[in-house]
């Protein structure tokens, strides 16, 4: 717990918590909720540490400023919580909003307020509490599969370049082809394009073309009429119709047969299709986003993909890099997945050890981001500590690491970590090699060799 020094506490107590006793000040200062008070001119007169963290503004910068200039919520200008509290004569509870912090991150929050009164019971201001709902909101989007651009994690230049053009791609309404290896996040990009486009209020319909045989795919995509075949007991609208006024995502289009490619081409050319067992063609107005994990141009050369269909779906092309080509994003992705599983499993995992991180950065991830997420989920099962170590990683990752010649920086990282660990445990046992070797789980002779290697003897 961060406890302010007595000298600083006197200095800030008055402006932080309106002369509250010191223990109240410490309590409020250390809460994870953002707490602040404002006067009737909407000027901030107290601001706790969590408020500094969430907004990115220091207390000294916030005190005396208008609350809307610091919190910058999407409801400040139109549905000010303070105005509503005063108008209704009642505190507000759990009002959802978004703030934009100093760095430009949009953060979902909930706001609750109560009145501050003087000794004569006159209202002199408002006491406000913000709760950061980022993690809950991220989980909600995952459950409802309403991903947006904010769910795309990556600082790698290739990813930033794609992200920078996403609004332009979304605006164009042209067909989009997303290329990328399996698990690289093609559907995430497809959804982000949809939610940035003018069709965002329409449906986003996805179908995995590789998961179904031709006959089933046809009925899924075009739909059928009652009695069209045995078991067709009622009319069923196809995905094309369901995606009307929205976006149809044809995942792994590379897996459809050449004969079905011909049917698809016809629909994509004029937007008309006929459900199975029907005679009347239907028209649909949907945007097509297709994805592939194979090189369609090579498939054209092999004669397994129609060239005309390729040009129909490839108006705008996005090529997603495999995770091994953007290994700089791995720590960021790990952090994100740890947040996610902490929330899902009620844990408080803090991260991965440097050694485990070295293993993960070196690993080629044939299954890309999806594989990394699976690795973290697996580690949550095995790891009962604060940090995921190499012993919590799947055997595939550990075996792969052992068979490779690693770049010198990774070896150096491991060596430094090993040296530090030996030094710490030796200190703990006041130089006793027997108890140190026992705690490290190695023999005394191995410990002696390592101590010589690192100059610790």
């Amino acid at each position, binding site marked *: 717990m961060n406890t302010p020094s007595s000298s600083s506490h006197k200095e800030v107590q008055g402006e932080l918590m309106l002369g509250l006793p010191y223990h109240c000040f410490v309590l409020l200062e250390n809460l994870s909720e953002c707490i602040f008070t404002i006067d009737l001119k909407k000027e901030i007169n107290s601001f706790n540490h969590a408020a500094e963290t969430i907004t990115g503004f220091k207390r000294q910068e916030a005190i005396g400023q208008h609350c809307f200039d610091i919190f*910058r919520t999407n*409801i400040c*200008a139109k549905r000010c919580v303070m105005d509503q509290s005063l108008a209704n004569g009642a505190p507000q509870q759990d009002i959802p909003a*978004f703030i*934009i912090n100093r760095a430009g991150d949009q953060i979902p929050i909930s706001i609750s307020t109560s009145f501050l009164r003087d000794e004569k019971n006159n209202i002199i201001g408002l006491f406000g509490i913000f709760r950061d709902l980022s993690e809950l909101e991220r989980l909600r989007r995952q459950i409802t599969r309403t991903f947006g651009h904010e769910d795309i994690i990556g600082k790698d230049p290739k990813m930033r370049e794609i992200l*920078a*053009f996403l*609004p332009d791609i979304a605006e164009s309404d042209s067909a989009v082809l997303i290329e990328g290896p399996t698990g690289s996040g093609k559907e995430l990009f497809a959804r982000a394009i949809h939610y940035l486009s003018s069709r965002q209020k329409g449906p986003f319909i996805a179908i995995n073309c590789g998961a179904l045989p031709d006959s089933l795919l046809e009925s899924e995509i075009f739909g059928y009429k009652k009695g069209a075949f045995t078991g067709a007991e009622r009319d069923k609208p196809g995905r094309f119709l369901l995606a009307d006024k929205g976006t149809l995502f044809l995942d792994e289009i590379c897996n459809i047969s050449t004969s079905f490619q011909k049917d698809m081409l016809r629909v994509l050319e004029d937007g008309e299709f006929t459900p199975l067992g029907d005679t009347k063609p239907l028209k649909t107005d949907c945007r097509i986003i297709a994805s592939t994990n194979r090189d369609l141009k090579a498939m054209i050369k092999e004669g397994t993909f129609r060239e005309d269909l390729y040009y129909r779906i490839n108006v705008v092309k996005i090529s997603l890099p495999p995770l091994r080509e953007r290994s700089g994003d791995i720590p960021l992705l790990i952090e994100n997945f740890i947040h996610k599983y902490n929330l899902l499993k009620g844990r408080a995992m803090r991260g991965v050890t440097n050694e485990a991180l070295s293993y993960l950065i070196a690993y080629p991830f044939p299954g890309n981001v999806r594989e990394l997420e699976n690795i973290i989920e697996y580690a949550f099962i095995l790891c009962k500590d604060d940090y995921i170590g190499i012993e919590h990683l799947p055997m595939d990752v550990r075996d792969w690491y052992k068979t490779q010649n690693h770049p010198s920086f990774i070896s150096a990282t491991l060596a430094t970590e090993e040296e530090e660990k030996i030094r710490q445990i030796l200190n703990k046992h006041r130089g006793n090699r027997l108890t140190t070797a026992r705690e490290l789980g190695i023999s005394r002779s191995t410990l002696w060799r390592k101590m010589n290697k690192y100059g610790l003897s």
Partner: protein
Amino acid sequence: MKIAIPIFKDRVAPHFGSSSEVLLVEIRSGSVHQEAKWDVGGQGPLEMARRLLDLGVDKIICGGIDRFYREWLINKGVSVDDNRKGKASEIIQKMLRDKKMFSPLKKGGN
């Protein structure tokens, strides 16, 4: 030079994309040539950014702006001066005095 300031009453709007009005100012020869207000009409941040781009705006002065839209605007050659607060007219006047508008493109923040 065309400058856009999303406003909240007469102040810089705290949240880009949720303001209902944008002040458009055209500067010529170091002074305000003309001013207009655009009623945003409930458009979201991306639609607003696209519209400002279509209007040929060179610089946006705003409070908080989502990093995603800020980067998109900067990529399109629009200078974004974010994290600003106070009266829009005073910011314009100060800018004219300081001749800040003639400085090279800035990558957000202040």
